[in-house]
């Protein structure tokens, strides 16, 4: 056994040995990377459900996986399974159906879809369909005809199914911090390995829950782009004419390990999780403090956790949602936290191509941050034809950039004021 390697605070070093990804661009690292670096958009007209009467008719759905009638938890599970299979295969960790560590799953809260609600309401053949509303719904629920929906719509359902399939250790954790969820899953894995509780962790985000009601809800918050005539051009982070985000689906999985454990088994190290930072906001349910202090703190704390300085950041994987509010606040916070170094730091929003994958976004962008380091190529922010004159950053507009990258910062800011920043570097730490 070699000497145990520690970080600047004496903690085990956390590395990534497996990455899996599925987005509106496609399945797997190779397909996604090819499309990310050629500036391809995965946003399309929605075909899963009727958009008649909706203000937004576009999304980056993953609608080719073919589980049959759409059912949100089954779809989120299917996406999660794809990214987990890819990541675990790359990592060659454990054995089939036996992953040697806990599962941290970022997932949107379970909700019964309207199709399923109406299926129950209408009842099985021969049901007593007297009465109305929930009285009838609850009575038909109790017939036993829809028992399969009981476990499926539990909040812990998807993680439990994944734990069964991949044989992760202990009680899996399903978590949500809204749009920061995927990054929170990585944080929890990092913390568990740093504590020495485990040598490995399966950190995942999945988002497959896009239906009529979800579109309507975000519409009512004025959060979505309505540029329906040009789906591929609708997500335009940092642009002057940005008008909201584009909802999307996808999943990513990172296999995290302690550096010592990965070395001991001869695993290929894909990158190092150098540090994480977090700070909750107190201002508003959907908006950041006007002075950006919570996001600034999040970024500053992530730097402090790594022991690095702003100058060590080579590139930023932006939260970059394409909402007027987020992109302005992200610029403000980065200006404050990175100071003059920001002017020299390329910042790119994957959401310009993928859309905003909500619960999965933090994990997907962590995966892409690592691919960026590996390739020495920064994917572009597409649809940036007229950059917001008040956002003075190098947003890598429209065309990828070849540049050696050692360290990437990845930002995730959620509704509800939950903010997370992750920093990844190439090996060696």
């Amino acid at each position: 056994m070699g000497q145990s390697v520690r970080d600047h605070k004496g903690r085990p070093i956390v590395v990534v040995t497996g990455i899996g990804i599925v987005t509106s661009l496609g399945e797997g690292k190779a397909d996604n990377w090819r499309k990310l670096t050629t500036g391809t958009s995965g946003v399309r007209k929605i075909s899963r459900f009727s958009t008649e009467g909706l203000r937004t008719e576009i999304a980056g759905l993953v609608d080719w996986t073919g589980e049959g009638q759409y059912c949100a938890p089954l779809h989120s599970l299917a996406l999660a399974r794809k990214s987990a299979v890819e990541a675990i295969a790359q990592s060659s960790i454990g054995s089939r159906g036996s992953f040697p560590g806990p599962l941290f799953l970022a997932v949107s809260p379970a909700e019964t879809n309207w199709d399923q609600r109406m299926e129950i309401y209408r009842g099985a053949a021969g049901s007593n369909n007297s009465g109305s509303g929930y009285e009838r719904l609850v009575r038909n629920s109790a017939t036993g005809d829809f028992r399969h929906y009981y476990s499926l719509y539990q909040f812990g359902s998807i993680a439990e199914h994944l734990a069964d399939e991949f044989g992760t250790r202990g009680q899996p954790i399903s978590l949500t911090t809204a749009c920061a969820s995927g990054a929170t899953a990585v944080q929890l894995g990092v913390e568990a390995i740093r504590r020495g509780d485990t040598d490995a962790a399966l950190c995942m985000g999945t988002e497959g829950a896009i239906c009529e009601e979800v579109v309507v809800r975000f519409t009512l918050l004025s959060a979505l782009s309505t540029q329906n005539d040009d789906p591929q051009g609708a997500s335009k982070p940092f642009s002057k004419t940005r008008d909201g985000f584009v909802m999307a689906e996808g999943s990513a999985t990172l296999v995290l390990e302690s550096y010592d454990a990965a070395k001991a088994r001869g695993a290929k190290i894909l990158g190092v999780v150098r540090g994480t930072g977090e700070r909750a906001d107190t201002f508003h349910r959907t908006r950041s403090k006007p002075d950006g202090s919570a996001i600034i703190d999040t970024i500053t704390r992530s730097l402090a956790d790594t022991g690095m300085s702003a100058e060590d950041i080579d590139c930023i994987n932006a939260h970059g949602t394409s909402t007027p509010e987020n992109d302005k606040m992200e610029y403000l916070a980065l200006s404050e936290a990175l100071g003059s170094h920001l002017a020299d730091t390329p910042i790119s929003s994957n959401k310009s191509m993928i859309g905003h994958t909500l619960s999965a976004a933090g994990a997907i962008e962590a995966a892409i941050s690592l691919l960026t380091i590996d390739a020495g190529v920064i994917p572009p922010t597409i649809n940036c034809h007229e950059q917001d004159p008040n956002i003075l950053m190098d947003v890598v507009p429209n065309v990828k950039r070849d540049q050696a990258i050692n360290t990437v910062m990845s930002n995730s800011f959620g509704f509800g004021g939950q903010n997370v920043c992750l920093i990844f570097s190439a090996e060696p730490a």
Partner: protein
Amino acid sequence: MNIEKSEVWITGIGLVSSLGEGLDTHWQQLTAGNIPAPSVDTEDQAPYSVHPIVDYDLATQIPKRSDQRQMGPWQQLGTYAAGLALDDAGIAHNPDLLAATNMIVAAGGGERDIEVDSAIMDALDTSDNPAALLNASLMSELRPTLFLAQLSNLMAGNISIVHGVTDSSRTFMGEEMAGVSAIETAAAQIQNGQGEVFLVGGAYIAERADMTMLMALGDALWKGDHASVWSRAKRDGGMIMGSAGVFLVLESRQHAEARGVKPYARLNKVVSDRCNRRAGAAHKVAETLLEQVSEQLPEGPLAVLSGCCGVQPQLSEERAFLESLSERGISPAIRGATTLFGNTMEAQFPFNVALASLAISRGAFFDPFDNSGIEQPFSDNPERVLISTWGHWRGESLALIDTPDAPLRGED
């Protein structure tokens, strides 16, 4: 690393249930010498009984009406209980402490609008263009605040906004086990120097047709009048859902001592695991968990709080497991908390930790909650309380709450 692990103290408790608000109210009712009458509503979710939340004065913890209006009953109850816990721990209104307080909320989701859902279902059933009707109905009937009130992570968001808790903020989901994982994770972080103070807890409101529907799908609800959880084994079992909001302040010993705060109790250990719930599997998991705490369980009487929710066959399996403690020379004095409080789901485990801490700090255990003979009297001063938690669908846990080597908070 051979760093000595920090002790985890419970230094603040905020508690509202169907039986009342606050530790004193619960203490009086649970030690009155007879089984308190549970608060049961048989109408609201008929044919199922539920334990409704007691009336409480929202404005004392959520003073702004604008904040109150942004939440549904579930978020209000959690935000209220969180405020009680912060007050109790002496953290409320202290900006420095609040900025260093981490939060893990165990959450389901907020209430759906039952009237809107019902009207839409009834209309869709007879519509010849249901897709267009659904979209039009959602666009006209949903309100932005309702969506935010439903979001699982917005209980934590509201706690940050209303009370100013701003260090890390995580929301765990997954029914009963979300409460277990929240406390288990917070304790691990404190023990390893990843935080000194945590606000941890959750809430559940039983008077919700959308959740009644979900549990009815699995035939998981007890039908008919209230009955002790153990007695439900005779008729295929079933849960009675309960309402509670409970938050705990967990704190490292050093941090609490430095600011001169006495604990109710010490969180000695929380362990958990899972299985596929084939016959006997959960019992086997519980046996393995027991091995991890058994060296701290001396022979003789042991105070045990069970979260047994009432569904079968878990009810019979968990009872058999608890009674098998006698094979180790332990005489368990079991209290099935769900008999009085119902299954409060994500709040259940935090609630039992609060009850266990109450018993430790007051130096006595509760009277039996059931008179069938399974719940034995316990007359000693409980130095420790074992908490057993089996999720209604998945997950098993054991936890040990005990007496630290330090002066406790009593009835002061």
